[in-house]
């Protein structure tokens, strides 16, 4: 018996070869009908034998195209038959629905094979892609995802490509960015003056680029979500020059390696790490060096961030070259977002890059490289961006209208629609207006692509975060109240959401600084609560920050502050005499010395004392320096008590870790010439025990424990605290889907907003 049914499918179903896949599947089961993209997903009709129809829907989920993801299927049987003879793909419909957009995906194996096959018509063509790979989010201007709505619009397909595009059995059937040397974009190479070097068959733009790299020069390379600065990683002079020109003396640089073998030549690679490294998202993966002193000019830490080529351009840079490792660092003006525009990069990088490998396809949506490590039983995101954004966070709740605006320094937002929270890619520090502009335009893009209408608006409690101002404006425009979320409650909720917890939890939130509900600065917190409520039960002794945020840039001041508080001789602080006296005067007079119960600042202070570090050159240098000292070590958790004292005192109902005995013990070790790597290890082990003692004292009911905050990017602490608590039969949850830093905060804010407003929402 024949039947006709209509269907709608939601999920990542556009731009991933989904309709061709339906076509092939329909043909396989001799079904007629049609399908088309809508702004809400894909819809269509099928007609055929009842059995074949059920076979079709049974087979559907198990043989999806690699990038597709189905969230929901709805089917309805229709009254009459239409007598469809075949299956057609119809033009897109624009309604008020919305659809998921695939993140950008690394060149697939098939495309890579064609790219390097001299017989293929796309041999060495740097824009090769197919339905299974290539740019997506970064080229989309508006929905639906059709070529005319992308930055491929100026490149009409040639007849050959058009034939592939229309051929259901072709891997490029309905691949929107499909193109070839005859019809697609082209790369070109410019010298430092912006003059185009002539291209020829023997001397094409990519050969110029390779030659420049081989000569130790720095080139700018336009990739998929932004422009990189590249140089030969094994050429110390080139690296030194890049560091000097970029004003980046010490911060580790990311590498791109020709292959996993090249990665293995410098780093250890576990099977899990290899999976991350070679996944189609192709993030930068932080890997442990094979030997600690390898490439110290690339990274002073025990680890190096490495990625594999993810666009044909990158692949070709290595092709036929004996360079296997390139530095690939985002090209930007200090503190500004990564460059995406040809002209702007020529202008901005004129004194930095010796050459420019650019192309004539616009990057519509900027998307920085993602950074991830394989941490405690899963990936830990430092930065969730290219290859992941704009794939949403899914939870079976109604997030429609929820807009959470995140924090300031690692700004990122989360906008809700249906069961999805769309998390922005990495945006950066909103202190700079260029970054603010990027944030606001990305928010606008998300609003349009996912048809977001703000109804419930959440932001951080800090009144001076730029993101708070943006949220205030949005709330005013929407005529809705603003939900201000305490910073560490936000972190706690983010980790709960990340792990699907919806119950009372105990939270250990260690970060830099965030505004507390008592208007003091927090950052070493022990909380209990859920999505609605939060109570601070433990913390650490507040650290006076002479000069406020200035102390975070000159961490010697924090070192001094620790000594001063511990009643020790302040001569020991790594500051010049005059500065030392001046900072001491600030402390003596309680002048410009906000107090912060911050774990990040404790690390800063210890880094200052242990590494004689004062002026830091990048955010997080202090904590990273301490962690680097202990690199390659695992925490020793076999003892009953910590190597340094972990004492506590009660302060208005908050159990505080007294840092003074710890500081005294550390200073005593330094004075007795104990090796600094041993001290760093003992310091961090003590913190692990401190976390355990606090948890035992403050979490007697053994509530699940969530760990969040940027300090938990520290591998040693993350594994130490997790293991120690687990050993004492606490159930511990850490981040795997969003970053534990402020970048992940918007997710927590969104959940808190949802729960806070849920009573009012039901009435509506």
């Amino acid at each position: 018996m024949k039947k006709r049914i209509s269907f709608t499918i939601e999920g990542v179903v556009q731009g991933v070869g989904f309709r061709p896949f339906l076509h092939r599947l329909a043909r396989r089961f001799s079904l007629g009908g049609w399908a088309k993209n809508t702004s809400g997903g894909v819809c269509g009709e099928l007609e055929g034998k009842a059995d074949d129809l059920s076979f079709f829907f049974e087979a559907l989920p198990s043989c999806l195209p690699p990038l597709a993801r189905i969230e929901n299927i709805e089917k309805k049987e229709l009254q009459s038959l239409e007598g469809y003879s075949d299956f057609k793909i119809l033009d897109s419909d624009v309604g008020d629905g919305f659809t998921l957009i695939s993140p950008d995906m690394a060149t697939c194996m098939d495309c890579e094979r064609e790219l390097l096959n001299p017989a293929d018509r796309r041999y060495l063509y740097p824009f090769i892609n197919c339905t299974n790979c290539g740019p997506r989010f970064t080229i989309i201007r508006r929905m639906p995802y059709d070529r005319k709505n992308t930055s491929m619009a100026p490149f009409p397909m040639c007849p050959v490509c058009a034939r592939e595009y229309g051929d259901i059995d072709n891997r490029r059937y309905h691949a929107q960015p499909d193109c070839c040397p005859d019809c697609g974009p082209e790369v070109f190479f410019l010298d430092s003056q912006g003059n185009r070097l002539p291209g020829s068959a023997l001397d094409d733009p990519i050969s110029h680029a390779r030659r420049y790299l081989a000569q130790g020069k720095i080139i700018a390379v336009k990739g998929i979500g932004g422009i990189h600065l590249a140089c030969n990683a094994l050429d110390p002079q080139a690296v030194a020059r890049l560091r000097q020109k970029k004003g980046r003396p010490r911060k580790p640089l990311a590498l791109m390696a020709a292959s996993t073998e090249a990665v293995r030549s410098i780093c250890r690679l576990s099977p899990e790490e290899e999976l991350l490294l070679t996944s189609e998202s192709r993030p930068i993966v932080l890997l442990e060096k094979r030997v600690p002193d390898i490439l110290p000019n690339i990274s002073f830490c025990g680890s190096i961030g490495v990625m594999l080529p993810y666009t044909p351009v990158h692949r070709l840079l290595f092709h036929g070259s004996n360079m296997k490792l390139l530095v690939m660092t985002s090209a930007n003006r200090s503190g500004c977002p990564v460059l995406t525009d040809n002209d702007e990069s020529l202008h901005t990088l004129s004194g930095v890059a010796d050459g420019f490998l650019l192309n004539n396809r616009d990057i519509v949506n900027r998307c920085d490289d993602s950074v991830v490590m394989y941490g405690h039983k899963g990936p830990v995101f430092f930065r969730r961006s290219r290859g992941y954004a704009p794939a949403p966070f899914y939870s079976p709740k109604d997030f429609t209208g929820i807009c959470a605006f995140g924090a300031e320094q690692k700004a990122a937002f989360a906008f809700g629609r249906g069961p999805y929270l769309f998390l922005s890619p990495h945006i950066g520090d909103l202190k700079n207006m260029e970054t603010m502009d990027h944030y606001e335009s990305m928010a606008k893009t998300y609003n349009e692509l996912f048809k977001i209408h703000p109804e419930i608006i959440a932001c951080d409690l800090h009144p001076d975060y730029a993101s708070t101002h943006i949220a205030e404006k949005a709330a005013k425009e929407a005529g809705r109240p603003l939900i201000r979320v305490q910073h560490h409650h936000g972190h706690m909720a983010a980790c709960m959401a990340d792990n699907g917890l919806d119950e009372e939890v105990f939270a250990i939130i260690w970060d830099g600084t965030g505004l507390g509900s008592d208007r003091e600065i927090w950052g070493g917190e022990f909380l209990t609560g859920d999505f609605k409520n939060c109570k601070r039960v433990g913390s650490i002794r507040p650290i006076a920050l002479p000069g406020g945020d200035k102390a975070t840039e000159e961490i010697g001041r924090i070192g001094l502050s620790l000594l001063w508080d511990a009643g020790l001789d302040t001569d020991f602080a790594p500051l010049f005499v005059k500065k030392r006296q001046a900072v001491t005067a600030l402390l003596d007079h309680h002048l410009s010395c906000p107090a912060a119960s911050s774990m990040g600042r404790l690390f800063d202070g210890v880094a200052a004392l242990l590494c004689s570090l004062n002026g830091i050159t990048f955010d997080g240098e202090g904590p990273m320096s301490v962690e680097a000292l202990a690199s390659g070590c695992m925490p020793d958790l076999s003892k009953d008590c910590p190597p340094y004292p972990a004492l506590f005192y009660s302060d208005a109902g908050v159990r505080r870790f007294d840092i003074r005995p710890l500081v005294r013990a550390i200073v005593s070790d330094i004075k007795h010439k104990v090796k600094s790597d041993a001290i760093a290890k003992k310091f961090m082990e003590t913190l692990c025990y401190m976390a355990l003692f606090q948890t035992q004292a403050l979490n007697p009911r053994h509530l699940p424990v969530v760990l969040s905050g940027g300090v938990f990017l520290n591998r040693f602490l993350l594994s130490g605290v997790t293991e120690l608590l687990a050993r004492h039969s606490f159930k511990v949850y850490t981040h795997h889907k969003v970053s534990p830093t402020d970048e992940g905060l918007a997710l927590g804010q969104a959940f808190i907003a949802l729960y806070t407003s849920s009573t009012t929402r039901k009435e509506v």
Partner: protein
Amino acid sequence: MDDIITLDYGSGGIKTSDFIDNLLVPAFDNTPLNKLADGAVLDGAERLVFSTDSFVVSPWKFPGGNIGRLCVCGTVNDIAMAGGIPKYLSLSFILEEGFKMWDLKEIIASIADEAKKAQVMIVTGDTKVVEHGKGDGIYINTSGIGILKNPRLGKEYIRPGDGVIVSGSVGCHGASVMMARSGLLDGDGPLRSDCRILTDLAVAAQDAGNVRILRDPTRGGIATVLNEFVEDSPLTVELNETAIPVDATVASACDLLGLDPLYCACEGRMLAVVAPEDVPSVLDALHRLSGGEKAACIGTITQKRPGQVILNTSLGGRRLLGKLSGHQLPRIC
């Protein structure tokens, strides 16, 4: 007269009279005040400018000034910034029991001196004394009246293209008071408050060109005042960091304290928004006057980001200078 202020000086009795007759009247000697009435009857048949301000600075004495000078400058400058010529001041003290008479004399002498410079008369006043521990030594309130000379000043006159002028280096007052508090400053160092009367500079600027608005950037510094110029308007202030005069001593004090000089109080600086064509003539007029030597055009009015203040930094970036909610709270996470 005693060596210290006692609660009696605020009682209204003999000691109060003693204080007024022997300390205040001789210092500010003028006809309306000498009558010692509750309110002063003032000459004039013109539109007036009236302003008041209270002063609670601690320590009361700081390099470059003291609370006495400040309380005259503050109110006089407010009148001058409103387009008036300041004429009369009231003066009220709230003293803490135990405050040194010697110090009070020094303050009063400064008030007299500054009033003379400002060509204003102190025509009415009041003194109260609070118990020891209930005040911070000394609080002063002054109110002032001036004759309105320029009724065409205000935010509503600002236009795109206008220049933003500051009459001298910024942040000196706030930085020196903070440093004085740390005990790190002696009076002889180069870091001093900019506390001074602005009437002459204000008059000169208005005579030299079309001035849209004048303000003395006291609390919150130039960043806060410039925000007030454009908030809720379609206009933007765009500043060039390199053009903003900041004394090296102020820069290093701010660096130590973790403060931004653009948010530090000035007590003798004037911000003027001036029609584009008149920027050179106004600058020229200011440069001729003492206290205006370092006057500079620090930015322009545009429409790039309505209601906001943009700083083009010396590094080539741009930063939004928002209004702060209060103290500068740490933000680095």
